[in-house]
């Protein structure tokens, strides 16, 4: 059993035949994005939760600096945010790649890279890890970050002055997935676990352990503070295209060439 983690590796494992197909009974009860993930892999994997890309910001620091909370992608390139934003480096972080792929799908590739170039003066650090920026926001090391919104909720619940917004122009998301490995020794138990993980009780464990992703089962209660899909504007995320190794490599190399090498 392989449980959790972002959906791309689950899809490539299914492609390489490392996992086996299974249709849990809860399939009909799942959100469309979770079903889409399963259909793309011929049911060798299935979506369990989703994370929405957005902005995290430190309310205290923003108030102290007199900056209005970021609402749109365009806000981040304005003067008040100069040197106040952190994002991860796509060379090392899947979060940052999701952001670039989202922008490319939202604006078209050339305009997306023009935006990233305009964003560069606002970024004070391209961190190695995807969750690094939101931790920095929580500790007041930077005012704002580009992060998954559920990570911002985790920090807020831990007692830090953190809030999250979804970009007004539209945003992308990741689908956390699970797969049953081919040749699993205890197949019956693995299937039982998969059934449970997608059931209402199973999906509720996220909130109980302070994980604030959006659950896949439509009947599962949304954890308090978790991003509500209905309230946000989404792009039609093309997981097949932007999950492929070649496209990923090309976009990351372009980022490296055009933005990563810029002086600061």
């Amino acid at each position: 059993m392989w449980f959790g983690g972002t959906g791309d590796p689950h899809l490539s494992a299914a492609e390489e035949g490392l996992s086996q197909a299974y249709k849990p009974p809860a399939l009909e009860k799942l959100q469309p994005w979770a079903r889409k993930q399963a259909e793309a892999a011929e049911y060798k994997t299935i979506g369990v939760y989703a994370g929405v890309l957005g902005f995290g910001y430190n309310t205290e620091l923003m108030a102290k600096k007199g900056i209005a909370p970021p609402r749109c992608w365009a806000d981040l390139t304005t003067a008040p945010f100069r040197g106040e934003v952190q994002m991860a480096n796509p060379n090392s972080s899947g979060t940052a790649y999701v952001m670039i792929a989202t922008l490319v799908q939202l604006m078209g590739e050339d305009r997306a890279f023009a935006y990233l170039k305009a964003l560069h003066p606002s970024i004070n650090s391209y961190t190695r890890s995807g969750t690094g920026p939101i931790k920095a926001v929580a500790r007041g090391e930077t005012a704002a970050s580009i992060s998954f919104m559920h990570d911002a909720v985790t920090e807020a619940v831990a007692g830090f002055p953190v809030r999250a917004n979804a970009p007004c122009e539209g945003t992308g998301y990741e689908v956390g997935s699970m797969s049953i490995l081919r040749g699993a020794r205890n197949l019956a138990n693995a299937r039982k676990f998969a059934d449970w993980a997608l059931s209402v009780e199973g999906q509720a464990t996220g909130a109980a352990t302070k994980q604030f992703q959006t659950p896949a089962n439509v009947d599962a209660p949304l954890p308090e503070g978790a991003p509500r899909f209905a309230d946000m504007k989404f792009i039609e995320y093309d997981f097949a295209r932007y999950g492929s190794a070649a496209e990923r490599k090309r976009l990351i190399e372009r980022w490296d060439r055009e933005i990563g090498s810029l002086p600061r």
Partner: protein
Amino acid sequence: MPNLLVPLVLAIGLLVLPWHMQQDGLLSPDWLGLWSTDPASAPALLLAARLNHAWLWPVLACGLTAAVAPMLPGRRLGGGAMLAAGLLGLALMAGQGFAVGLAGWEWPWLERLAGPLAEGQFGMGGGAALAGFGFLFTATGGAARLGAFRGDAFTAGAAGLVAIVVLLFTFWPICLALLSAFDAGLLNFAARLADRRLWGWGGSALNTLALGLAVAACTTLLGLAFALLVTRTRLPLRKLLRALTVLPIITPPFVIGLGLILILGRAGLVNQAASALFGVDLGLWIYGLPGVLLAQVFAFTPVAFLVMIGVVEGLSPTLEEAARTLRADGARTFRTVTWPLMRPGLANAFLVGFIESVSDFGNPIVLGGDYAVLSTDIYFAVVGAQADPGRAAVLAWILLAFSLSTFAIQRWLTAGRSYVSVSGKGDSGLPQPLPLGIRRLCLAVAVPWAALTVAVYALVLAGGFVRVWGRDWTPTLSHYGRAFGLGWGPGGIIWEGTAWPSLFVTLQLAGIAAPLTAGIGLLAAWLFTRQRFAGRRLLEAATLLSFAVPGTVIGVAYVRAFNVPPLELTGTGVIIVLAFISRNLPVGLRAGMAAFSQLDPSLDEASSMLRQGNGATLRRVLLPLLRPAVASALVYGFVRGVTTVSAVIFLTSGQTEMATVFIVLRAVNGDYGLAIAYASVLVAILLAAIGLITLLVGGIRIGRRTPAGVVA
């Protein structure tokens, strides 16, 4: 009597113990099903005779030969037969292990030759391990009988043991991992090696080199200052100072990073004070080179200190007394006698500092910011958005080249000189007090450093007792309650806290690994400094290899090499213990080598003239003189077992969750309170363990006098 012992080991391995690995671990009750017809718990003979494992017959036949061979008369005949049977047995074991996998033949040509197999086999287990040792010691015994290793069976066995450990658990996995750099062809490798992201300004290779050199220089000097203060002065606080220098080594690495952020970060105490008093915002200077440098110097000074204190303590005062008698003043004695005698120790400390720095993972990931270094780049090449293990292998090559060249330079600097100062000849005298200038310098360096350490630890400790570290300073015990809660049930104590399972696993695995690491490390040190045999240099270089490779690479290499039979260890506790041994062996080795190079070989000669074998000389003459090295190897092995993150994060599983991995995951989820509470408890446990080891193994006593003031 090895003549009887080795055949006995062989017999138990082949006839009694289960040949294959136990699915539920070493301590499962499957062991009790000896001679059961379940292939998972049957010994080799039964497997071959009744359970269709016909490929084990050659191994069994070879085992019989190896058991009988020692009884053959004559040096040539007996020795030759032993060597041949032992080597053939090992080869057959390896051959059948690779040839028959989980689902039958692994190699297609064998299947064409012998037809498909009905069933395959699991990975090797306890029986196979014992049989392997039996074959190995038969072979080394034979070699000794033929006159190799000066005819000494103990030396031969020791060399064989070290060789097989290094070969199987260091050389092989790392080679597999490194070779994967060439998967995409030589041209691709060359192109990746010359990458601008590595060698350009701010490239990770260049950054790693600069950081490593700076850290090594700082830690060596600080370690020396502390070692001199602790051993050569009667400073009232030196016991405390000694404890302080040990603190960072027993702390999980990222804790120091978080502590530094709390003090020096943008929202840290210093910055808050600066903006309140002077209205300046010091900004984010800590992220990047300064922060990583500071945190690493914190983390690795103790290692340098442990190396240096062994050297300074082992320095016989006789020569210094002689210099004083010849009317040299304190400063001159220090410059012309003490300092040169410490050179191998300094070179060792520098080497250790450099290699620790370039392979460190925890600090760059917490404090690195934009400052890219190789070890984190490797990690992200494997798990990050690139998912490019080939690039990781290329980076590992560069890292390896760095560490190996430092090693070569160190060898070149200290080669061809003798640093022997402790001999068997009578009284050793009293250590000289430090010259005043040196003493002041040491104090000026050490005291501010100690103060900063105290500050970081006070903050970290406080973090376990407040609601939200850095924000809500309301005192609470809830973090400790959640981690270490106890309940009372009908069956006795219920371990309710979330931290208990990982704590028990960690202590158990580190406790198993530490004596093994220290034992093999010192044995290897003795072999490399005291014995001459063919292939010694090669073996030494291979042993140090794992030290030069960062933990992340070792972790990935282990998962890759030990995922399938014949050695199917991924997900077990065994693989973690093996990773600890292979990672920490070089430190025990270097401490041992530094200590051995100070002991006069005339001690060995005297012992062998009194007709003692090499084994008895090691045990009765050298080991008692090596107590500080033994103690520090034990301490280091245990502590590293408890605090390592980098290699272990790839190797833990549901059953073998390690404390550090648990803590890191809690911290990553923003649960700093629990992470800090747990880390504090770990630190306390380690302090107790160090005290216990020092008490049991004890310090060195070279001189026979005590200072006059005390005697009266």
